[in-house]
């Protein structure tokens, strides 16, 4: 059921990409590289998850066309955090993803983008007795993410942006482990 929902969301995103298209003007173009430095609020959406916390992420992509970039993303996301009797119970996730971004221009300095990524998620739990989303020990899990975002290009070849990314991976239990990141990005275009 959860997988079906995920693919429905991914389908809707791809449809959005198909409807909107356009050439970026004043933003990254074909053969350029874009690096995004992100700070995010990350929240797990699984059983026993507590309020999330900070995630730090870095992604680097090469523009294959004026709209499509493909690259690598890594991060460290604390998706559940609880202070309980002096113990900081938390679960951190380090994604290593191959990421595709599709940009479409909505104004001279503004773009929207859609994300599809796949790769591996390293879980780093520091928990008490209760597992979170079935995760109680460190492990490497296959998964992926989808997302949408907004970029505002200014300061020459630099930009500020925000994005929402939904990550999911196989936890090895009954349900998918999922978490979202609401991220602010600082981006640099490199020739």
């Amino acid at each position, binding site marked *: 059921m*959860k997988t079906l*929902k995920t693919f429905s969301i991914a389908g809707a995103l791809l449809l959005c990409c198909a409807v909107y298209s356009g050439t970026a003007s004043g933003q990254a173009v074909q053969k350029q590289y874009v690096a995004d430095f992100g700070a995010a*609020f990350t*929240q*797990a*959406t*699984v*059983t*026993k*998850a*507590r*309020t*999330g916390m900070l995630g730090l992420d870095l992604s680097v992509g090469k523009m294959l066309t004026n709209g499509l970039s493909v690259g690598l993303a890594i991060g460290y996301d604390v998706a*559940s955090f609880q202070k309980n009797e002096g113990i900081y119970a938390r679960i951190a996730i380090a994604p290593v993803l191959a990421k595709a971004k599709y940009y479409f221009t*909505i*104004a001279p*300095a*503004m773009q929207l983008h859609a994300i599809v990524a796949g790769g591996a998620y390293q879980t780093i739990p520091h928990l008490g*007795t209760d597992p*979170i*989303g079935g995760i109680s020990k460190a492990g490497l899990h296959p998964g992926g993410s989808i997302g949408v975002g*907004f970029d*505002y290009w200014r300061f020459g070849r630099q930009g500020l942006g*925000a994005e*929402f990314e*939904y990550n999911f991976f196989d936890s090895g239990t009954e*349900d998918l482990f*999922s978490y*979202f990141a*609401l991220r602010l990005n600082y981006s640099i275009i490199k020739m």
Partner: protein
Amino acid sequence: MTKFGIRALIALAIFAAGLSGCSQEGTLVIKNSASTEFAGFVDGTQVTIDTLGSYETTAYIGKSLAVVGPDHISIIVAGSATTKRAFSEEVTIKSGETTTFQIVDDTGALIFTNMHGRTVNEIAASQCDSLKFGPNLLEEKRTIPPGSTRTIQLDAGCWDIQINYDRDEFLEVVTGVEIEIGQLIEIKWDTNYVYPPPASPAPAR
């Protein structure tokens, strides 16, 4: 920054504020409808519930965002009562709902007191229409010293109770013990004990 950019940031801020209120909880009510006190664990917490009493707890399910995330959780309810055999069951609690779990009698019980001067070593039971006694009903290596009491769970029916006592392991049988689900029968046993049959209704005139 253009008006569109400002609007987009405001929308994001509202969206972010909305995300913080996505905790999912449900309520579990355990009602003890058994004839005796329940003692056990609910999701790892030790509880005792009096006869006809109840225990209520709020179960934290997790976090969700719109259609994504958990809307239920399973927790373990385990324990026993004198007239309820030991059990361990998984109970599913849905977000925003109250789930009621009922504990009901599923056995009867003998309250056996040793009034004899010697220790009771073993107690076995057989159906009244059977000649074969079953295994020792006392827990391993737990005898009944003089003056002590033990509770022994028995299914509904008519039972003959065999008592093994003293160092010489004498045997004595108490016959015709009728028991029903949820019923407690007290036996203050000594040698030559005769179980009193239930009082029969007065004959109709």
